[in-house]
């Protein structure tokens, strides 16, 4: 600001300096001239003195020669000339005296000169007197005396000295004059030059300032127009002197209507008062207090409607003094948003309180800033005890680390990684006891930065249930395994004695049939039958248990090959019944080969077996089901199954027909079911009595695809 002021005075300063320089030059010249003229005068006088001194000397010499002449010739004309000469010398002396009145040295010399002259005259008078009276011979001695040139020499030398003095003085004066001339010349030149320089510089500066002002003026206007906010420039009287098109739009006025208008008309309160100098402070001070702060006020449009604004002020230098530029921003949207935010916050708080889970809001330093009553209950603290506490106090590990920004990632990143996943941690109550919790995080934007809302759920019961479940499952697995083993061992060990019974009853039957009585035959027959059935049951049981115990890992195999093998195993039955078995191309699947063969064998075997008299037709196909599954279908034209038995037929040893009608223990489908379930699928049947059946099961697609 200081510089600005200086710059505005510069032209004045410059001109002042120029004028001063000129004045100085003038003065100096004037003094110099005066001195010169004085000096000239003095020089002239000196020349006069010199002249006079020379004259004096000449006169004196003339006087002397005239005296001598008279002495020699006795001619009166010489005497007159002598007398006239003497008067002249005296007169000259007087002139010189007056001319050199200022020089005591000269005066002294003059005195000496006068004395010498007087003596000369004395001598001359004496001699003249003598001549007159005594004639020539008498005066020859006196003439000798008079002819002594000593006095004259002295006189001459004195004159010489005086002349020298004057000459010296003259030389001095000449020196002085020369110096003064040089001085004057220098001063004149310098002064003129300086004056010219200052004037030029000042003029140039002024011009530049003017053009700058013009430029910056233009730039400023450009900026103003382009500004996104309404811009208004106000002078010290509170009048609008400059505005932009945004201002026109915002306030609903035309440019000309606003120019010259008091700013109070568009900003009724708060603007003018802040800026106009009052008795207590200057405009500059008032302005300085307001610069940079956004002030919220109310503005009024042309149509009288009011709207909230925020103004930012900055000073603007101009030729007319300090102006104030105000950027005016319509903050009605912002206000609405703020209000809305306030409402939302209120609602959020309400939601938080009402939430069934404990809710805790944590800031970026890991402190609890908000919580609900559930949180109080769960952790055994009161609200005030928890607010401001570090969340580490209630969730010792796993929470703070996940959320607080560290050098590796910002809070946003940290949070983004955790959103939506339920994290299992351990919570700690006030009494120190711990309990398992699950937290779900979500971010919350706030004025203080990103906060984290955590829903904290006590999962003690869930954990217990999970643990119980795991236990049960383990128990179940163990139990199943035992059962499986048991079934296997039992079946296997039962086989031996059963084999004896069955074999020998058969031998009995063979050897003694008809040799004992008919009862014996019947009894033996029943025994044989019983034993056989038991054998078959045990074999089936073994087969069933083997599905689990002897199962191998599922690998990729060709289901078509498995079917071919099953058909090979069934070729006897197929030939016997004249059955027609067809199939589509079947895909590779993930399966246990032996079991898949067994599965096909059972299903196709059933399809052929459970027929009336028609030629059995069986068709096997496979269809893609979803992403990674194949659904196989074994369709037959057999007897069909009533829907009420759809579940039952898959049970163990469940039969729908008498033994006389169809052989079999009823284990076939149970084995199929077990096999399919072992492969992770389900087996089902669609059927109608008299219209055949379709058995479906799904197997996983081979992974290679």
């Amino acid at each position, binding site marked *: 600001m200081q510089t600005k002021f200086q710059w505005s005075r510069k032209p004045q300063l410059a001109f002042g300096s120029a004028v001063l320089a000129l004045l100085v030059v003038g003065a100096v010249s004037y003094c110099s001239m005066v001195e010169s003229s004085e000096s000239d005068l003095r020089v002239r006088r000196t020349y006069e003195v010199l002249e006079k001194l020379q004259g004096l000397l000449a006169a004196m010499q003339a006087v002397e020669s005239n005296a001598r002449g008279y002495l020699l010739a006795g001619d009166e004309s010489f005497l007159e000339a002598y007398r006239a000469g003497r008067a002249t010398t005296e007169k000259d002396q007087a002139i010189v005296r007056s001319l050199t009145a200022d020089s005591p040295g000269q005066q002294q010399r003059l005195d000496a000169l006068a004395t010498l002259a007087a003596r000369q005259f004395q001598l001359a008078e004496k001699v003249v007197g003598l001549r007159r009276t005594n004639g020539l011979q008498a005066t020859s001695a006196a003439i000798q005396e008079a002819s002594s040139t000593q006095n004259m020499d002295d006189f001459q030398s004195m004159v010489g000295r005086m002349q020298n003095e004057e000459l010296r003085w003259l030389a001095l004066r000449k020196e002085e004059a020369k110096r003064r001339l040089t001085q004057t010349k220098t001063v004149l030149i310098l002064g003129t030059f300086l004056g010219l320089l200052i004037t030029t510089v000042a003029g140039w500066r002024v011009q530049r300032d003017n053009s700058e002002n013009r430029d910056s003026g233009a730039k400023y206007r450009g900026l103003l127009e382009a500004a996104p906010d309404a811009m208004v420039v106000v002078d010290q009287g509170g009048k609008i002197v400059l505005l932009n098109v945004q201002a026109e739009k915002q306030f609903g006025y035309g440019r000309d209507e606003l120019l010259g208008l008091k700013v109070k008309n568009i900003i009724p309160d708060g603007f003018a008062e802040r800026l106009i100098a009052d008795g207590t402070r200057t405009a500059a001070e008032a302005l300085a207090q307001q610069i940079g702060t956004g002030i919220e006020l109310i503005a009024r449009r042309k149509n009288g409607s009011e709207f909230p604004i925020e103004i930012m002020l900055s000073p603007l230098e101009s030729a007319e003094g300090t102006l104030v530029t105000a950027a005016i921003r319509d903050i009605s949207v912002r206000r609405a948003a703020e209000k809305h935010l306030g409402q939302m916050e209120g609602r959020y708080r309400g939601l938080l309180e009402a939430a069934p889970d404990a809710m805790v809001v944590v800031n970026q330093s890991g402190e609890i800033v908000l919580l609900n009553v559930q949180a109080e209950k769960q952790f055994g603290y009161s609200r005030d005890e928890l607010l401001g506490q570090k969340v580490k106090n209630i969730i010792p590990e796993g929470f703070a680390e996940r959320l607080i920004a560290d050098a590796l990632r910002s809070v946003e990143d940290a949070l983004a990684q955790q959103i939506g996943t339920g994290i299992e941690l351990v919570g700690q109550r006030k009494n120190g006891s711990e309990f398992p919790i699950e937290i779900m995080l979500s971010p919350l934007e706030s004025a203080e930065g990103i906060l984290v809302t955590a829903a904290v759920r006590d999962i003690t019961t869930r954990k217990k249930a999970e643990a119980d479940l795991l236990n049960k499952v383990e128990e179940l697995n163990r139990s199943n395994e035992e059962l499986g083993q048991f079934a296997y061992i039992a079946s296997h060990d039962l*086989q031996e004695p059963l084999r004896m019974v069955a*074999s020998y009853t058969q031998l009995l039957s063979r050897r003694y049939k008809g040799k004992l009585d008919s009862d014996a035959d019947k009894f033996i027959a029943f025994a044989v039958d019983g034993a056989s059935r038991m054998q078959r049951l045990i074999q089936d049981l073994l087969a069933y248990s083997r599905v689990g115990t002897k199962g191998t890992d599922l690998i990729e195999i060709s289901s078509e090959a498995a079917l071919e093998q099953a058909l090979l195993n069934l070729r006897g039955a197929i030939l016997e019944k004249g059955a027609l078995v067809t199939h589509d191309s079947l895909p590779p699947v993930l399966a246990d080969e032996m079991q898949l063969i067994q599965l096909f064998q059972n299903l196709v075997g059933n399809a052929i077996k459970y027929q009336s008299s028609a030629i059995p037709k069986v068709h096997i196909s496979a269809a893609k089901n979803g992403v990674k599954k194949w659904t196989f279908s074994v369709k037959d034209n057999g007897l069909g199954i009533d829907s009420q038995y759809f579940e039952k037929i898959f049970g163990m040893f469940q039969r729908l027909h008498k033994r006389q009608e169809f052989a079999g223990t009823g284990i076939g489908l149970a084995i199929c079911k077990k096999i399919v379930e072992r492969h992770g699928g389900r087996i089902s049947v669609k059927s109608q009595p008299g219209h055949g059946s379709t058995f479906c099961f799904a197997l996983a697609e081979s992974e290679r695809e």
Partner: protein
Amino acid sequence: MPIEVLLVEDSPGDVRLTQEAFRNANRTIHLHVASDGVEAMAFLRREGVHSQAPRPELILLDLNLPKMDGREVLALIKKDPSLKTIPTVILTTSEAEADIVKSYQLQANCYLSKPVQLDAFENLVKSINDFWLTKVKFPQQRQNG
């Protein structure tokens, strides 16, 4: 000429069954029975009471025997230079893979599982007769020093 066959089997029921089955298959078969491994070795080595025992053309060996079990007997037979040339067929109720592997490792000539059904068993014996005792060729020299 009777065909001499040694059956090593501890279960009398099974013994009788096997006998009946062989009788049906081939009346010329002379079935000797040893009920445990020790007796089996004594018979084969013609020791003690078995000093006059004939050299069997075929040995049918059960695996699960008391005192010395079938696996041991098999091992001994196949180590003995004078006995190892006799075809030794394992005839057992076990279908366990481990048993099958072990038997072949010990150089059993083949492994047969006894079927549970009577007719199937009789068929199996018939097959043994057909194969081992009819089709298969044995060296002429029956006795060796």
